[in-house]
């Protein structure tokens, strides 16, 4: 019994992974990625057609919310999961990315790929502006400041003329195509592949960071900030880095989102989105990339799949959250045991 209770799917998976040699790993990863890339066609193939979402189009659901949420949850995971900073206003960076795309493309005629680095840049810049004062604070004070920042961005968008006020910006162009891939309403699967590419890039980036100096610094800060700073980790700088990198991912998601939906309004960037993304991170298994991605995919997909419940779907969503957290408080796929042990002491 105790063996079953201590069973950790993440460690189990890591064990199998460690036993493989390099070609096996490459084949597995490629097979896995192509399987995910084939997802847009799952609705029309018999055995997987149960995945199809009622009312909303499955391929669109795959882009937003599923793909976007996975991307943003991975970004937020850098902040919350890796360095242990509670950010309740992550939606702000998403909004900044989306509004960069909206404004630069409709007023200046830039296309999505040109806007993308700037959207990311703006999100990072706002991350620095917010982070420099806010990251000196601890725990829940940081939470309320970030929450406030999220609201500030939304309210500013609501009240400025350049952002179109409450009605937002309409007529945002789709991205221009490349390699014969067309990006328009008829081809949501192409957007999905772009988002998938961004997700893979983010995962690769997080994995690189994790094994290098920033990752170790984040880990130290998360476990005990005082000790980390005593051991010579420049805590403010590394906290700022994790914050800014998280912001960059959010900004990238925002740019793609705006050019996909073509119309954005401040309503889309409410506090609930921040909370939902945080829920994805914790639900999936805070700190563990695969858990976070899985959790985000499930939490984004579930409300769409149960749309036939109409009004009560959000109620069911809330109940699922309570139930899951009670059954698996560390999330679906918890982080490594090694990383968890010290967490108890700091509670």
């Amino acid at each position, binding site marked *: 019994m105790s063996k079953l209770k201590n069973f950790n799917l993440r460690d189990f998976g890591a064990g199998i992974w460690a036993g493989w040699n390099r070609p096996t790993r490459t084949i597995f990863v490629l097979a896995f990625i192509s399987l995910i890339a084939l997802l847009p066609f799952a609705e029309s193939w018999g055995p997987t057609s149960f995945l199809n979402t009622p009312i909303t189009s499955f391929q669109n659901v795959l882009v937003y919310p599923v793909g976007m949420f996975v991307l943003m949850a991975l970004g937020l995971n850098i902040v919350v999961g890796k360095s242990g900073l509670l950010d309740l206003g992550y939606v702000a960076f998403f909004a900044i990315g989306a509004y960069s795309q909206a404004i630069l493309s409709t007023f200046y005629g830039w296309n999505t790929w040109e806007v993308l680095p700037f959207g990311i840049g703006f999100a990072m810049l706002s991350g620095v502006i917010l982070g420099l004062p806010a990251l000196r*604070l601890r725990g829940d004070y940081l939470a309320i400041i970030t929450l406030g920042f999220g*609201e500030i961005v939304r309210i500013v968008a609501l009240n400025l003329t350049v952002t179109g006020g409450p009605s937002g910006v309409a007529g945002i162009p789709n991205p221009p195509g490349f390699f014969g891939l067309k990006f328009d309403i008829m081809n949501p699967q192409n957007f999905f592949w772009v988002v998938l590419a961004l997700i893979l890039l983010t995962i690769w980036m997080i994995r690189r960071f994790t094994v290098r100096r920033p990752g170790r610094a984040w880990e130290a800060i998360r476990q005990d900030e005082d000790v980390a700073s005593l051991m010579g980790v420049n805590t403010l700088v590394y906290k700022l880095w994790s914050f800014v990198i998280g912001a960059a991912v959010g900004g990238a998601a925002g740019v793609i989102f705006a050019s996909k939906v073509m119309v954005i309004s401040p309503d889309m960037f409410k506090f609930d989105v921040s909370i939902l993304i945080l829920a994805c991170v914790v639900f999936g298994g805070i700190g563990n990339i695969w858990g976070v991605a899985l959790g985000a995919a499930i939490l984004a997909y579930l409300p769409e799949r149960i749309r036939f419940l109409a009004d009560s779907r959000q109620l069911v969503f*809330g109940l699922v959250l*309570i139930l899951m957290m009670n059954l698996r408080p560390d999330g679906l796929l918890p982080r490594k045991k090694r990383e968890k042990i010290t*967490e*108890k002491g700091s509670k």
Partner: protein
Amino acid sequence: MNFSVIGSQFWSLAFQGLALGLIYSLVSLGYTMVYGVLRLINFANSEVFMVGTFSVLYLQVYILGIPIGDPALHGVKLIAYLAISLIGSMVVCALLAILVELVAYRRLRARGANRLASLISAIGVSIALLEGFSMLTGARGKIAPRLLDKWSFGEVAGANFRIDQVMAIVMPIIIFFLLDQFVTKSRLGKSIRAVSMSEENSKLMGIDINRVITLTFCIGGLTTGAAAFLYTTVYENTVFNVGFNMGIAAFTAAVLGGIGNLRGAFYGGLALGMLEQFASAILGSQWKSITVFVVLVVILLFKPNGLFGEAVQQTRT
């Protein structure tokens, strides 16, 4: 920008700010009491407030049988009905807060889960309550019956001392006084303070931790219920998402004053109420919440633990 209102409406704004701010501070007790003991944000408190406002409304309409639009009551009947609504709302909120603790916190605490896990389960409770009431009310705002005739004590320096707003000032002050006495003097109050200082040591001293935690949720619920009653009496309406803005404001107030601290909640709420009133008069109401957050950031930069916060060593997470 319209600074002239400060000259002409200063006392009026200050009075309204006081009334609003003290309602905030009652709700922020629901955050600060729980935070003091558990070091966790009681995320579902905003929905406890929402349920409180609806319980006042349903109690008055369906149980006391007062149709909406009826003329206001007078004399003993008025006082009795107000008292019933107040007590009803406080009891409902306290029970709900205890239920929230049982559902969202207790099991997770027993398993030693990380603090974000309970945050998410509290968010789950919050979503479930929000959506439940949204369905129940058809997502439409509800108007509460007017029990209290809104007569004024008179006007002093431009401030109109309306009875309901006077009540919203006097009642929180009484509640805070009683609560302060309770926490500093009584045996149970002392056990709350002991647990907030050190859970381990309190356990060793024979304090039943779970009982203390339930008690703090209960107190938070009671004060939030009182706030819900005052809110419904002053504004005479409610809607399923009324808790959202109230929750953010109350949490901000708690942080502003120094979270985990009774007096901090009181002064934080007061400061926030005043700030909101003056900011919306001067800058326009759409910039109200921005001003609040900017002031909060500035205050936290100079006083990182809020106006009345504890020492850094004690606020360690």
